[in-house]
């Protein structure tokens, strides 16, 4: 991964900031002047991964564009918890239309700016996995196919959490949701939108998680260096739907990457150009056990065959993306 790892052995560059580093080498989130695009008072659950991921990503975009940007938001948790009329937590130009049309609205905003000759103002579309993977998918694919000048960010919490944890096309196998009662989501269903985006051969596709701020900020900054359609897929654990402790949001995201279940990579024009290697590999058990949505796998007796299938998926990711040296 081309993220520069400064050799600071006290905290490494894995921490947000470091008193020993010059300010320009710290994360955007370390700055007292960060955008705080999503400010206090929003109604996200305690420990919400999406609120965290969205502030990190949009702040990084604000930093990369000097604040000259417009955010287009799909319906979903992010919109509902941040903007119950007449209040809003957004401190950035922000527009919301419908659940399924955020990529199309973003395309329209970009087109309007182009028509007005304001191409220095950049457009970021964003939504949850429901609005991206399922409901807004046709608009998203169209936006990619036309190579519209939009960075679209999907905050993936792997189900429709806002309406009561119904399954989405991003729900992983064996996860229990309100609409996939035991034994949970079937294997072999759903879609991998980062790979679908790559198949459009758009300029830039990347994945990230809330477990690695430096990497996420790098990818937003990198995405803003391109013109045309770009896609960033951020894994954001949901304490409500995943049935995890509020304080474990970052930990569980870290375990998703360290187990190999969520590969972190970037691709340009359909080809993988960088992969974040696994640093401390763990079995998928470590990741699954923290989450109530997988509790049915660890009963008496445990469903070792199902766990083995999930492990096989992780192993496949490790092979496919070269996650381990």
């Amino acid at each position, binding site marked *: 991964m081309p993220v520069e790892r400064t050799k600071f052995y006290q905290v490494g560059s894995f*921490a*947000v900031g470091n008193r020993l580093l010059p300010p320009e080498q710290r994360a955007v989130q370390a700055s007292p002047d960060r955008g705080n695009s*999503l400010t*206090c008072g929003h109604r996200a659950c305690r420990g919400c991964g999406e609120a965290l991921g969205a502030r990190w990503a949009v702040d990084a975009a604000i930093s990369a564009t000097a604040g000259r940007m417009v955010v287009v938001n799909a319906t979903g948790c992010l919109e509902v918890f941040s903007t119950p009329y007449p209040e809003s937590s957004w401190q950035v130009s922000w527009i919301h239309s419908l659940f399924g049309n955020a990529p199309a609205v973003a395309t329209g905003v970009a087109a309007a700016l182009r028509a007005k000759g304001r191409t220095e103002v950049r457009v970021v579309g964003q939504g949850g996995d429901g609005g991206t993977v399922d409901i807004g998918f046709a608009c998203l694919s169209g936006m990619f196919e036309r190579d519209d000048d939009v960075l679209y960010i999907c905050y993936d919490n792997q189900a429709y959490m806002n309406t009561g944890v119904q399954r989405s096309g991003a729900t992983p196998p064996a996860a229990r949701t309100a609409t996939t009662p035991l034994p949970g989501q079937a294997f072999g269903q759903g879609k991998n939108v980062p790979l679908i985006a790559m198949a459009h051969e758009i300029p830039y596709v990347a994945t990230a998680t809330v477990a690695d701020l430096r990497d996420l900020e790098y990818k937003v900054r990198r995405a803003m260096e391109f013109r045309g359609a770009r896609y960033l897929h951020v894994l954001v654990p949901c304490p409500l739907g995943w049935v995890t402790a509020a*304080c474990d949001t970052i930990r569980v995201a870290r375990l998703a990457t360290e187990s190999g279940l969520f590969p972190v990579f970037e691709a340009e024009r359909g080809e993988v150009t960088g992969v974040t290697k696994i640093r401390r590999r763990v079995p998928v058990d470590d990741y699954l056990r923290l989450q109530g949505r997988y509790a049915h796998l660890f009963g008496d007796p445990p469903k070792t065959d199902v766990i083995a299938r999930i492990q096989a998926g992780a192993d496949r990711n490790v092979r496919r993306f070269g996650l381990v040296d």
Partner: protein
Amino acid sequence: MDDKPFAITLGVGTSRANKTGAWRTERPVYLDRLPPCNQACPAGENVQRWLSLAEEPSYEAAWRQIMEDNPFPAIMGRVCYRPCETACNRGKLDQAVGVNSVERFLGDEAIKHGWTVPVTAEPSGKRVLVVGAGPAGLSAAYHLTRLGHQVTVADSGSRPGGMMRFGIPRYRLPRDILDAEIGRIADMGVTFRLGRAVTDLAEAMRGFDAAFLAVGAHLGKRAYIPAGDCARILDAVSVLRDLEETSAPALGRHVVVYGGGNTAMDAARTAKRLGASDAVVVYRRTRDRMPAHDSEVSEAGEEGVRIKWLSTIAHAVGGTITIEKMRLDETGFPQPTGEFEELAADSVVLALGQEADLSLLGGLPGVEVDDGVVKVGPNMMTGCPGVFAGGDMVPDQRTVTVAVGHGKKAARHIDAWLRGATGRPAPKHPVADFDLLNTWYYSDAPATVRPRLEMARRITTFDEVEGGLDERTALFEARRCLSCGNCFECDNCYGVCPDNAVVKLGPGLRYEIDLDFCKGCGLCVAECPAGAIEMVPEIS
């Protein structure tokens, strides 16, 4: 009706009107914990604090922080047995931080640049007699001087330093280093009265308001060994002292050292350097029961010192000794086996422990002696009011660092006593255990190894064996510190709060929780690398 647009009934506003702090059942609270290195330091150094200053890098400030507690950083960096490194949490991650190496670097920097410690306290008008110019006495003299008292140090030795000079060989502690650090204390206005033993304390204390006794333990313990007339039997303490004060003692080509402590190792390594072709340590138990420190045993082994485990000396005749093999019984005590072996020995050096010469206490009322050492209270005071004691003559571990710690502690209590107050130590913070850390945020970095003198020079000269770190490696080493239990401003809490409810107060000022908006999710606590935040239940 107001002037809102058609179909709009509410004015827009920020979500900051929504005080989500009301959701909270627990709140994060910043705290400082006691790092294991600080807890382990017998001299009470704030190791983590001075490492953090060294990281900046502010070497002089770091050195001054050490000097708050210990006047001998350069000596410590050579002779301390490093309890801090044994306790270091980083040892569970990769390898312990080389605290001692950094301390030595800072101590050497101070000598190189001539840094000194000013005495800023108002003169108290009180006079304190310190008996013994070893690490305990000198440490007490240093701290008492800084507290404004007038100090006289008396010692029977011709030069100050005690066991640091007359017990620790110069290949471990070069004398220019020793002289530089003691000279700094003398320059602060401490009076030295050397070459004259204090034999009657009551007499010597005339004109002084208090006394601190730290005469050390300089008498080698003897063991009865049936020996012929021409057997040469010496004791290790005298050998090491003679080497320093007069001339190299003649030990011969085959030297046997009897004992298993650090002094035995020093005697054997010294014998090697004095030309012995063969230096053998005879010890009656096994390695795991040996009191000598690992580093001393391994360095002795590297230099060719052999060790006869489970052996006692049965008798010595002429140039030969007979040793008897032992075995450990169920209680771990060595028992004779009746198997014997002969060893060539031009001399036998006894290193069986040392005792304190307590004759100066004669007639002093209230002083209690138990098992050869002086009893002191928690304030280091003996049974005689105004007479305090420390170092090897009181019951504790006998190391330089422990002695330095005694000196500091005693100085603080003497100060309190002289001012008619009682010293009350500050309450200790809870210890920062490894489990409290989130080690994900620390990158992997193994310890820096200090250069060692090449073997040929080690066994023929008294040159210093271990080298120091240079600035680059010392800085690298300091920055390996995990800052266990104390905020080092990594901004993690500020960055990971989904509710934007951590306020960054600026460099050196740390952070504050905005309780109007903190929902109490605990992410800041979970992701704090140092374990410097805890969750506390809200009181309803």
